[in-house]
């Protein structure tokens, strides 16, 4: 076990490495961060003690109170819930003798829920000490219980138990690419700056994280902004139901890193980061291996491919369980070792990002696409897709389908095509792009996935004929309430009020008053939230209210009702109190 002092030195006593340091210190000091350790870290970095505790308190996977030696977190993502994750939670609770949200008295195990773990195609999933484990039912659940009771460290659990399926169902130009490391980069070096820009322009490549911002615009703005540019890969794949980046990083990491290196050349960046979500810690070793190998091959580091002055290296940063860090300015804050609170914009990261430097933040898939565009040429790329959405898109399909997994499809396919591919033709609704996306009803299944019609960041969650869409909406609303960073009041309070109103509807106690409140909240959150999380949060229920009016009507009570049992609330006072 390394001491705090050794770890401080390993991180060069650099305050921007605070989050990475806290992760390491926690791992070394018994899985939580006691007050004296926080003090030692604060002194070592020359930071205020309150700042260090503030950062530690922000991230779900950093603990300020003792936790179990084994920390079991069960995924609360809706497709995991429909696959039985609540039963899994109950089974762990009964068999490990620990209440959810608590630590067992012997300190061996603690149990809780967590947001989507990115294993939606193999549910129900859990995390044990940060390690993702799929399909935790039946024998696999027995095996997890047995390993915990035997005290076996997680990295020595049976390989079969730790195995995560890649689940690739359909390949396109990206997933079938057999690009030799460095091949795309050589093409880029052959082209001059103008030719490179032309290639990117002609490819009409747009960001894959959801917003669809043109890649060439972002990169050119960054290149021309004063200061040393920074290239960031957003691998904080937190949108529930999305897992295509996990698969890309597991199977095509070279492609992603190659794309980042191309980006570095185009923007004249020397510094790169991959920000990997804490839930994907199991990919850390693999990614570090890929980066190390590419350094040996002369594809990272000083003078890449023998080109003088082409210096670029990539550091892997891990998140610690905060959905909001997927927002690019929150991600940059987190990279700087701070709480993941989104920044005011403008200025945009592309001119004032990491440590005030010009920074491009792109999705994992975008970088892979860049490598493919330069390797295969623009014609091959734009032969696929539509006018404004060229190339392919990776979809993470989960829920009530026969064949869940990752599908690479050309942009422009209809949702109905996707459902046919995955075997979900009887769907009663599909959530596209996760809770912050859109709930799509059957009458819209002929809509096309592309920026011109139904934009998609990757998640396709399919709900079969018997699924309760109010349960879906409530699950999403609770997700936003849980993940709100708390910085602005509309989001901090509004997300909770929305969840409470939906919960009343679910109990059959909701009336038109709650519907009006939900509508008002949707406007309030959209107009006054500090960042996209609050703006998008009402998407959890807005589409359901609008597209499934029959569903909504069936849930309404005729008049206003309290959300709780009034008589029971009174009885408590009498029972324990004065009246005998």
């Amino acid at each position: 076990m390394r001491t705090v002092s050794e770890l401080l030195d390993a991180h060069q006593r650099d305050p921007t490495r605070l989050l990475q340091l806290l992760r390491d210190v926690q791992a070394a000091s018994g899985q939580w961060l006691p007050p004296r350790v926080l003090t030692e870290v604060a002194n070592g970095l020359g930071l205020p003690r309150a700042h260090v505790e503030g950062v530690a308190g922000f991230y779900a996977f950093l603990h300020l109170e003792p936790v179990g030696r084994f920390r079991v977190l069960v995924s609360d993502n809706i497709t995991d819930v429909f696959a039985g994750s609540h039963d899994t939670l109950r089974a762990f609770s009964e068999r490990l003798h620990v209440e959810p949200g608590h630590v067992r008295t012997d300190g061996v195990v603690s149990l809780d829920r967590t947001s989507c773990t990115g294993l939606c195609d193999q549910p129900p999933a859990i995390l044990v000490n940060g390690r993702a484990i799929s399909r935790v039912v039946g024998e696999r659940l027995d095996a997890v219980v047995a390993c915990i009771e035997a005290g076996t460290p997680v990295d020595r659990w049976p390989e079969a138990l730790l195995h995560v399926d890649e689940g690739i169902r359909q390949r396109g130009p990206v997933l079938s690419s057999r690009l030799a490391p460095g091949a795309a980069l050589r093409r880029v070096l052959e082209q001059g700056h103008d030719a490179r820009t032309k290639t990117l322009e002609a490819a009409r490549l747009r960001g894959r994280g959801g917003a669809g911002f043109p890649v060439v615009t972002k990169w050119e703005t960054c290149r021309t902004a004063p200061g040393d540019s920074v290239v960031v890969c957003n691998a904080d794949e937190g949108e529930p139901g999305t897992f295509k980046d996990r698969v890309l990083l597991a199977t095509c990491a070279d492609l992603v890193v190659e794309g980042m290196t191309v980006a570095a050349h185009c923007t004249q960046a020397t510094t790169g980061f991959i920000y990997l979500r804490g839930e994907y810690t199991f990919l850390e070793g693999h990614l570090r291996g890929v980066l190390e190998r590419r350094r040996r091959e002369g594809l990272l580091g000083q003078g890449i491919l023998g080109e003088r002055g082409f210096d670029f290296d990539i550091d892997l940063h891990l998140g610690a369980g905060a959905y909001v860090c997927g927002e690019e300015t929150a991600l940059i804050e987190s990279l700087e070792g701070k709480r993941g609170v989104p920044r005011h914009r403008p200025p945009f990261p592309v001119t004032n990002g990491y440590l005030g430097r010009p920074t491009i933040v792109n999705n994992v898939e975008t970088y892979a696409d860049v490598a493919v565009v330069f390797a295969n040429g623009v014609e091959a790329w734009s032969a696929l897709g539509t006018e404004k959405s060229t190339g392919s898109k990776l979809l993470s399909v989960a829920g009530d389908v026969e064949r869940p997994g990752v599908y690479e499809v050309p942009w422009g396919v209809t949702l109905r095509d996707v459902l046919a591919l995955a075997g979900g033709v009887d769907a009663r609704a599909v959530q596209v792009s996760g809770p912050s996306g859109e709930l799509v009803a059957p009458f819209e299944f002929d809509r096309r996935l592309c920026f011109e019609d139904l934009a998609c960041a990757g998640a396709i969650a399919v709900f079969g004929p018997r699924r309760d869409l109010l349960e879906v909406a409530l699950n999403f609303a609770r997700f936003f309430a849980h993940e709100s960073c708390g910085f602005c009041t509309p989001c901090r309070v509004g997300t909770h009020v929305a969840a409470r109103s939906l919960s009343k509807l679910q109990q059959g106690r909701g009336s038109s008053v709650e519907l009006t409140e939900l509508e008002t909240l949707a406007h309030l959150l959209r107009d006054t939230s500090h960042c996209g999380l609050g703006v998008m949060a009402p998407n959890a229920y807005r589409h359901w209210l609008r597209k499934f009016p029959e569903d909504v009507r069936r849930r309404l009570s005729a008049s206003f009702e309290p959300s709780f049992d009034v008589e029971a609330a009174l009885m408590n006072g009498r029972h324990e109190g004065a009246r005998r």
Partner: protein
Amino acid sequence: MTGKVKLATTSLAGCFGCHMSFLDLDERILPLLERVTFDRSPLTDVKHASACDVGLIEGGVCNEDNLHVLKEFRDQCRLLVSVGACAINGGLPAQRNQFDVSELLHTVYMAEPGLGRRALPDDVELPRLFDKVRPVHEFVRVDYFLPGCPPPADAFWAFLTALLDGREPTLPRGALRYD
């Protein structure tokens, strides 16, 4: 008196501070009285409301009598307005929400010095307590909220005159306050 708007006011678990602030309308009460007539209110000492246009309610709900009054009031008022911090959030009385009610009663009436009798109040006429003090809108539908502790007289004035003129009420800067 026909043609006048009927206004009722009442207080639940509050301190009547909101009513006092209402009285701070001072001489503006006279023009107001040309347009409204008071039904149930501590100002008129009418104990039960009849059908009213507007009801102003102060205070949160801490016992079953509060709830009884609230329901009757709601039934009689076309528009119900939650007035002040206690009606809207539970306010000061809700400070007891962090304690268990029976523990609190025991501490106050049995353990702490000062109350000679050392017995829990148990008269059958005393209303039963709720486990928590709750805001008005957790029990009934509320149409408007007038925040403040208390809302300033200007807030009452802006709100009521807007209603009387048939405008959607908005509070001017300075009158919209929570302290």
